[in-house]
């Protein structure tokens, strides 16, 4: 059976989605439904617990696993504080670590991320670090307790596709925890590529939130992730430089 297990939880969907950038909160439950996602990430800093109408959490289906993220953290210390607060306010014990001190490219700081992963994994969190796809850093994250690693395909919000393809391939081959490609996935074909390569899941936000019809795009991503996964399992045939005739001329020699 083809199962994805993270932090002891078995997931049937390999599509994770974000909650930022949507034109309204009301559209979110519909995208959750059409994309059949099971894991939804939320920036804790943006959650307004004092205002029910504004609270993004009240638009997320209770069956979904909430993946609060530490967006806005510039250091490990800040990320740890945000994660602890997320748990206190009832967001569960999954946490996506996002530590960025560069507002121009929004590239994650692997060194600080490793530090935060260690502390939070020790405190019993299911830690999913967002990271620059570096093999040694991924190993360090796994060593200190990451439940999965989330390498970027391209900078957040860039919709540029899987630009770090070769690095991610290496992680897929070498890292024993699930690889979730996060950031850069701009269209369903990018998601297919990631899944065909053998990524365990993808996280999509901007491409969904800013689509002309996010609900239909949710469906498209759902199918893309599914297609990519099936292609990976069924093993895509090898690439060849030359064409290969289906009825070879020298077939009689075999």
């Amino acid at each position, binding site marked *: 059976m083809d199962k994805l297990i993270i932090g002891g939880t078995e997931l049937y969907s390999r599509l994770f989605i974000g909650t930022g950038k949507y034109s309204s909160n009301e559209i979110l439950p519909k995208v959750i439904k059409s994309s059949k996602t099971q894991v939804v990430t939320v920036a804790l800093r943006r*959650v307004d617990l004092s205002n029910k109408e504004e609270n993004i959490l009240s638009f997320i289906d209770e069956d979904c696993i909430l993946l609060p993220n530490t967006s806005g953290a510039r250091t490990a210390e800040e990320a740890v504080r945000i994660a602890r607060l997320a748990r206190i306010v009832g967001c569960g014990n999954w946490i996506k670590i996002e530590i960025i001190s560069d507002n121009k490219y929004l590239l994650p700081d692997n060194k600080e991320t490793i530090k935060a992963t260690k502390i939070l994994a020790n405190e019993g969190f299911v830690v999913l670090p967002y990271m620059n796809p570096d093999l040694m850093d991924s190993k360090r994250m796994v060593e200190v307790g990451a439940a999965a690693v989330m390498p970027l395909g391209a900078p957040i919000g860039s919709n540029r596709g899987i630009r770090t393809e070769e690095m991610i391939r290496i992680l897929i081959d070498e890292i024993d925890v699930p690889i979730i490609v996060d950031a850069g996935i701009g269209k369903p074909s990018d998601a297919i590529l990631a899944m065909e390569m053998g990524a365990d899941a993808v996280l999509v936000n901007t491409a969904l939130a*800013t689509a002309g019809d996010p609900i239909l795009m949710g469906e498209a991503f759902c199918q893309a992730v599914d297609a990519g996964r099936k292609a990976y399992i069924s093993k895509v045939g090898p690439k060849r430089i030359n064409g290969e005739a289906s009825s070879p001329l020298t077939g009689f020699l075999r």
Partner: protein
Amino acid sequence: MNFYQKVQEFDNFDFDKFFGNVTNERIESILMEDRMNEEDFLSLLSPNSEKYIEEMAQKAHNISLRHFGRTVLLYTPMYLSNFCVNKCLYCGYNIENKIRRKKLTLEEVEEEGKAIYEMGYRHILILTGESRKHNPVSYIKDCVGILKKYFSSIAIEIYPLEEYEYRELICCGVDSLTLYQEVYNEEVYKKVHVAGPKSNYRYRLDAPERAAKAKIHSISIGALLGLEDWRKEAFFTGIHGKYIEKNYPDVELTLSTPRIRPHAGSFEYVREVTDKNIVQAILAYKLFLHRAGINITTRERAEFRDNLIPSGVTKMSASVSTEVGGHSNKEKGEEQFKIDDNRSLYEVRNSIKFKGYNPILKDWESI
């Protein structure tokens, strides 16, 4: 190189000659690229680029969509005190203007804060005139202490401070700084800031950098358009933003395009800045600094503000009172300037929704 040296580099630069040489081909080739340098940015501010305003808008819209999505953050200003020792020709708080002066007591700050919180706001901008005697840093700290109970984000728009003072305010709960240079042209600056501490051009120019060194989360800069040729002023605002972005990449940057408004006082001479000019400035900012937010205040008309949203506006103020105690008090201090969009939060939110955007009240909290 510090930013003052950077500004000085342009002392003898012939902007008009540069603008005169910006050809259609040049603009078209800039618009084909994703990233642009200072020269490209200045070209987009040229009179000739006006012809390409729709192409610029389409590009700016796509950039903004990628980085900010369909969201607009709403906040409201709260005036703490209009005591001011400066003599600035364009401002209603000018020390020589005979206006009602008022400073909120801490009880009034609480009352005003509560009134704003109950409207639904979670982001607040607090303002004072420049008077260290009437509005010392200790007073601002006390106010922040009270407002922290109600607001997830507190921004300050006050006189420029020393780095250690910014650090103290950040410790108390301030996360954002709004500080407009007003005018980057040093000569004009000296002409309109006749007396008072604000007449120190350099001290104001370097203030955002001091706040960045003190590790503030976000900084909003801008020039008060209308005091000098807006094209040059927009250029300096943009390169100031670039300077901050390059040297302090952890700071979240916002650019604003305040246009001079009628006020109590005597300043007659204002250079015209049209709606089209404001749009061109906003679009050029967006194309030059992809990650910078754009703030559009109630100095502008409601309809104009709404129309600007898809071009990359990320922040708007609403239910604004520029009077001290204007949200709750009966005994108010006089306003700083007249506003042009008097809509309530409810009305502004509905207009944003009507444009297909999500009006949000909270996107930050110091944790």
